[in-house]
């Protein structure tokens, strides 16, 4: 039961990530992406990395989310063309993904509650993933025939994701127990400042130049070219 807080953050964040991809309207997707960034910064808060959490909030939620939302609004549909979202805006495939993620999270809860060994959990995930993929294929091909071509891409996507996930889990279980330092960590700003300036000082200057170049490039790309008229 001591995993309750990180599992709650994990549930919220993965729900936001799935909604960012599967919601019907791009604007809801952009807002959910902002929620995903917020959930990730909650993870950083839980890990006692306070400065990183606030940096993530400031840069991602404060700037990148606004940028993405602004671009989506400039491109996209006017507000009245948004179809009424059903099933909370997700649709069938989004619901399937949410169910998969919920199964994953429930497995975590079960294993931490029963204090079982991690190897068993990872073996289960390694062998269950292909079965899930097979089930997904079967369900999708039984579905509506006239949308089969669209669904084929999505099945391909689920296949790729499951392979990647199984790969990760396989690597972890192959490496055995990863050694972990579970002592308490106090937040220390001086160490961070020391390493940022001494070791990575030159890199920060280069990063500044890169950001300036990216800003210039973005403006130059998005500017309307008036000479051609």
């Amino acid at each position, binding site marked *: 039961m001591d995993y309750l807080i990180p599992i709650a953050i994990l549930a919220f964040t993965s729900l936001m990530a799935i909604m960012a991809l599967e919601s019907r309207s791009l*604007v809801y997707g952009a*807002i959910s992406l902002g929620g995903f960034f917020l959930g990730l910064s909650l993870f950083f808060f839980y890990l006692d990395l306070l400065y990183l959490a606030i940096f993530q909030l*400031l840069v991602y*939620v*404060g700037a990148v989310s*606004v940028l993405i939302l602004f671009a989506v*609004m400039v491109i996209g549909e006017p*507000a*009245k063309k948004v179809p009424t979202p059903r099933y909370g805006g997700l649709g069938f495939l989004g619901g399937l993904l949410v169910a998969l993620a919920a199964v994953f999270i429930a497995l975590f809860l079960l294993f931490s509650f029963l204090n079982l060994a991690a190897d068993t959990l990872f073996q289960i995930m390694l062998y269950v993933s292909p079965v899930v993929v097979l089930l997904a294929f079967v369900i999708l091909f039984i579905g509506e025939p006239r949308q089969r071509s669209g669904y084929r891409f999505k099945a391909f996507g689920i296949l790729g994701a499951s392979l990647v996930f199984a790969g990760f889990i396989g690597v972890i279980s192959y490496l055995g127990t990863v050694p972990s330092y579970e002592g308490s960590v106090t937040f220390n*700003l001086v160490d961070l400042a020391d390493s940022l300036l001494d070791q990575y000082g030159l890199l920060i200057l280069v990063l500044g130049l890169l950001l300036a170049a990216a800003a210039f490039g973005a403006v130059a790309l998005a500017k309307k070219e008036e000479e051609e008229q």
Partner: protein
Amino acid sequence: MAETPPRDFLRTFLAVATVVFLACVALLLYLVVGPLESVLSYLFRNPAQLLVDPLFKTIVFPGLVYAGLVAYLAIWGERKFAAKVQNRVGPLYAGGLPGGILQNVADLLKILFKEVIIPRDTDKPIFILAPLFAFVIGALPVVLVPYSPTYVILDFPLGVLLFFVFTSFYPLVLLLAGWSSNNKFSFIGSLRALYQQASYEVPLFLAALAPVMLTGSFRLIDIGDAQGKVWFVLVAPISAIVFFTALLAELEKFPFDIPEADSELVAGWLTEYSGVPYLLYQFAAYIKMVAYAGLFVVLFLGGWNGFAFLPGEWWMVIKVALVVLVIISTRAFFPRIRIDQLLNVGWTKLIPLALLSIAILVGLQLLGVLALVR
């Protein structure tokens, strides 16, 4: 036909309603909480201990009641001050108390009874939730400002940065509010507000860097304690000026009043809002002002350090009141500048000034005159 004037009826109605409301609350407490003794013993256990209880701090001072009261007085004071400067009288009649100080209550009642119009083709969830988010994000910075080393609701090791996190969340809400109104002018108005708020975040952060450099910590209590001998406004005056200007722009006060300009684009991004959502936006703006004024006092004006005949919290309250007075006086004194002039000032003039101030501080330290803490 009754001959009693309407004002008497309203006053008696309000008095009776207040008494009935309080009686209901007392009855509810008695029935729900259980024996009244346990509640009373919690409230009255020890006055000295009650004053530093976290619940007291959150609700009364420096939390909801105090911030609400200052915002209320600021709204009234803004109208009165602007009126006096413009040789008018301002709010005078409401409530019978001198100076029309109950005018805000009258406005509040009027807005509560107004019809909430939701236009037909808007994105309704976003349209309804945007004012709530604006209010929450505007009101949350109040918990960070310390009024003395004991009177702080949330003592965060990176207090200054968390304050700026709330600053950077606000343009998101503006964008959603303007877009969901399904009105081209609202969207353009919210884009202009977005440009203004996002552009002035950079000078705000850079100017707040000077007190952080002088103290060596992001924690607001440390910054306040470090000003025991000399206030930071005397050590880094350029940063203080830049911070105050950027603060006026972030709060959408004159001369940076474009988003709420009454004579351009109807009401900017607020056009489609009426009634309670409008009230939420306005109240959020004024509570944000209380929080930002508190931040300015802690960062530059010495916080709770003052002469010893008053406790620190009182000094803080007096200074915050003075800063709020200066902020609301800008409505009377300044014209409104154009959006391109505004962005010009923000990017090309304020940012180099803030960097100049930091360079001066570093130079003073290298010369050995000033000792920057670590």
